[in-house]
């Protein structure tokens, strides 16, 4: 008995090892060292600078604006994400499976691409304003206003809220709503008394997550907000890269991390609540969006969502194909394929595509191995929630990416020198993707009944064999989604790559960035299109593979 327990503990620790190593060496130590600089002065360490920040009216104003724009962005994300989540969970409509498999693509688009799409679409002479002028005879100024920031943030986070709303809605047992109907509740009362309490935790955790992202947002604010708007992250960037005031930047990053970690903790608390109580005994049947008057608003909603999400992306595609002399041309793509090394761009564009794919594959593999074994150890060997450990695993999304990149650039020159050049960027991307792997894989593994493993072991399978034969096939779809998400996040990661990559390590978003800096909008658009194609393609492939796996298993994965 004692030896069996020792073996269990040894296995759990062994499984936790990759995650612990990754997070400690590539995240906590470098970031911790960087942030500690904020508390250092001549006499040693003191919280003086940190306290001073909290009484500085300029910093408080920044904090207020950062929180305000994050709040507005989260609110708009909810306003967009909840109806989208409703449609995905409850209705069927033309193109739904495509929409469902590509819904997370905006979330992993690099900020620079989103900014580019918004510039082309919402600019004073962009087609959005041209259409407005043609229909109603007026234009609106979107760019360089607070609304540009908020809209772009909602473009990112709306899908996130949609996914979480959809998840909660799909879990809700339809019999609960039906029993309320038979007890005399009309559709509105059912929504208020049953549906809303069931989906609210999902919506709220989506909103809190959206708030965290928008609170940390940096390239969007910088590129779409114009000079008038600055957030904490922009200020950290300015202090660190322009004013070279590392101590001040570090103190500010520490302040920012405190706020976002607080929200991360709230997020985890919300997530642990209610939705499982409403868990379903039978699947929801998706009703088609029909031709009746009552469904007219849904069609309008679908059209608006399509314009909102597809518009900026389509704008980039269209722009990449326009010929400055008029007409359509693939010239920009041809230039990408043939251009060589350039002073502005660094490595040739083809090389940057290769880099992106190689880094992403490596990063996704590292994130998957460490994230999945972390989840496996906590779900199967610990068996209860560990809020502290989970908050720690979530921390990479709650810490300033500028501070992370700075800490790492110091560390890679110092104690982490032993890490080979080609592994550095994938490791950083793996750290950033780690929380997503954990979030995507945990619910799937929890859905696999532990008794199936016991049954396999009683039939003579060893622990490893049981994992390979029973759990792996049933959890494979969750792993695929996690892989696609990690891959997409790595391909689109810009801030850390920009600060860490050597000239020959340029990736696709960095290349977009450089093209823009060189005022070559068409090449930037063409590169952005390839980038979207890569991330969209990975999501689509993952979805196809998952569907194929589900078919092959004949739906057994849903039986438990």
């Amino acid at each position, binding site marked *: 008995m004692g030896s069996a327990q020792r073996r269990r503990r040894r296995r759990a620790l062994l499984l936790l090892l990759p995650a612990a190593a990754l997070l400690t060496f590539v995240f906590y130590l470098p970031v911790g060292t960087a942030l500690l600089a904020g508390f250092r002065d001549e006499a040693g360490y003191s919280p003086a600078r940190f306290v001073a920040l909290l009484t500085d009216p300029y910093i408080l104003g920044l904090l207020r604006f950062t929180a305000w724009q994050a709040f507005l962005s989260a609110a708009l994300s909810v306003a967009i994400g909840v109806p989208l989540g409703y449609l995905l969970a409850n209705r069927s409509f033309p193109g739904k499976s495509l929409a469902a498999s590509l819904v997370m693509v905006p979330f992993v688009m690099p900020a620079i691409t989103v900014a580019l799409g918004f510039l082309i679409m919402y600019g004073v002479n962009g087609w959005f304003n041209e259409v407005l002028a043609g229909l109603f005879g007026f234009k609106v100024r979107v760019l360089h206003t607070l609304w540009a920031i908020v809209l772009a943030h909602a473009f990112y986070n709306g899908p996130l809220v949609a996914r979480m709303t959809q998840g909660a809605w799909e879990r809700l047992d339809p*019999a*609960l709503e039906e029993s309320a*109907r*038979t*007890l005399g509740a009309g559709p509105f009362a059912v929504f208020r008394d049953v549906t809303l309490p*069931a989906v609210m935790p999902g919506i709220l955790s989506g909103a809190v997550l959206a708030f965290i992202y928008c609170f940390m947002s940096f390239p969007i604010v910088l590129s779409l907000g114009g000079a008038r708007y600055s957030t904490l992250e922009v200020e950290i960037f300015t202090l660190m890269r322009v004013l070279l005031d590392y101590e001040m930047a570090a103190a500010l990053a520490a302040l920012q991390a405190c706020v976002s970690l607080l929200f991360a903790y709230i997020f985890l608390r919300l997530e642990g609540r209610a939705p499982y109580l409403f868990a379903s005994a039978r699947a929801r049947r998706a009703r088609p969006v029909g031709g009746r008057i009552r469904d007219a608003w849904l069609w309008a909603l679908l059209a608006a969502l399509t314009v909102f999400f597809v518009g900026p992306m389509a704008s980039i595609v269209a722009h990449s194909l326009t010929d400055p002399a008029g007409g359509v041309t693939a010239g920009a793509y041809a230039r990408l394929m043939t251009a060589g090394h350039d002073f502005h761009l660094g490595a040739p564009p083809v090389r940057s595509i290769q880099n992106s794919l190689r880094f992403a594959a490596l990063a996704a593999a590292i994130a998957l191995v460490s994230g999945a074994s972390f989840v496996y150890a906590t779900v199967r060997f610990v068996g209860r929630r560990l809020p502290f450990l989970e908050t720690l695993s979530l921390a990479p999304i709650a810490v300033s990416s500028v501070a992370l990149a700075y800490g790492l650039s110091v560390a890679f020159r110092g104690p982490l020198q032993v890490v080979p050049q080609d592994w550095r960027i994938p490791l950083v991307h793996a750290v950033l993707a780690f929380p997503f792997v954990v979030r995507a894989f945990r619910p799937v593994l929890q859905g696999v009944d532990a008794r199936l493993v016991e049954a396999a072991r009683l039939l003579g399978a060893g622990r490893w064999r049981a994992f390979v034969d029973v759990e792996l096939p049933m959890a494979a779809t969750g792993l695929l989604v996690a892989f696609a998400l990690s891959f997409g996040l790595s391909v689109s990661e810009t801030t850390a790559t920009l600060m860490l990559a050597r000239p020959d390590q340029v990736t696709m978003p960095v290349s977009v960035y450089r093209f823009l800096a060189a005022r070559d909008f068409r090449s930037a658009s063409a590169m952005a299109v390839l980038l979207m194609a890569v991330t969209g393609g990975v999501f689509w492939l993952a979805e196809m593979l998952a569907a194929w796996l589900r078919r092959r298993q004949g739906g057994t994965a849903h039986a438990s």
Partner: protein
Amino acid sequence: MHREPPAGAAPAAKEPGPGGLPGLALIDLHKRFGPVAAVDGVSLAVAEGELVAVVGPSGCGKTTLLRLVAGLEQPDTGRVLIQGRDVTDLPPERRDVGFVFQQFALFPNMSVAGNVEYGLKRRGIPRAERTRRVQEMLAMVGLAELAHRRPDQLSAGQQQRVALARALAPRPRTLLLDEPLSALDAAIRVRLREELRETQRRLGITTLLVTHDQEEALAIADRVAVMHAGRLEQVGTPWELYDRPQTRFVAGFIGRGNFVDGRVAGDVIDFGPLGRVPKAAVPGAGPLPDGPVQALVRPEAVVLQWPGAPAAGAAREEAAAAQGPAGSALVAAAVIVDVIFGGERSLVQLAVHGRPWIAAVFGAAVHAAVRHVGRPVTLRVPPAALRLLPPA
């Protein structure tokens, strides 16, 4: 006796219950899901205060039928009448029905009392009255002290009682039960089904119950409707269904039995090696034309004779029955394969001409049967016990 299967249900719809208008009337309901006809022309009348159980194998459309009554599905064609009022076009919340779901569907975000109170609230009943009614309902199901618990803190049996109290609290005109006992353990299931029956009788509420468990249906229903592939095969009292099944499906689904093939020829029915009996001696055989028939023999109608009993050798008697003029009973030589002990009644498994038969034995005969396992016996079936079925 020999009616067309679907028509077996139709006449019932025209017979109102003792109180005049039926409490619930279904008229020619149809519902398709894509290519599947889930409910395919069902008519049924449930008298005021009556409990009708719809029983059938899973996938036969019985739950869909219940959902059509509740308004949770819309029929393609057909009408639903509650106390004579056409409710087909009304949404569920205005049909005044109580519904108990298979997994109970208690609101997890409300207490037990909150669940029971919910329907009263939606009907705008004043608070004082609501509180009184909730207490009354919880006392009725014996859960008064658990009023402030959350549903997930209750056992399955307690959850079932709360679901029933919740459905009954607004005093609906009709009670609909969808497999209300299937989520419970066997022991508690029998107790709760008696409680359910008693409550239903006391309140006198018109009730439609859906179950796959024929034993449960026979035990508590006033009448049972057997559903198969979207149609009602037969509607009748438990005894009628057991004693006079009108289709092969009903005969096989309700109770157990032996099936024998025969042929009507003139005024006798020839059952091959089992012998021939006069047509006039078999109930309901009168109007049958010449041709093949199938008969059902319930286990308790099979009479076993041990060797050494007064009768002559079984083989000789059987040969005489098969070749001679129509005899007084079907007779066959059989071998006892096994005896399944069942307390007051045991089942004897027999082999008759290579085919399995079962017979019921009572009291001291059980002991005799056990002693004769593996040995030949004589089997007799009086013609009055034969139940003719339409040819399969």
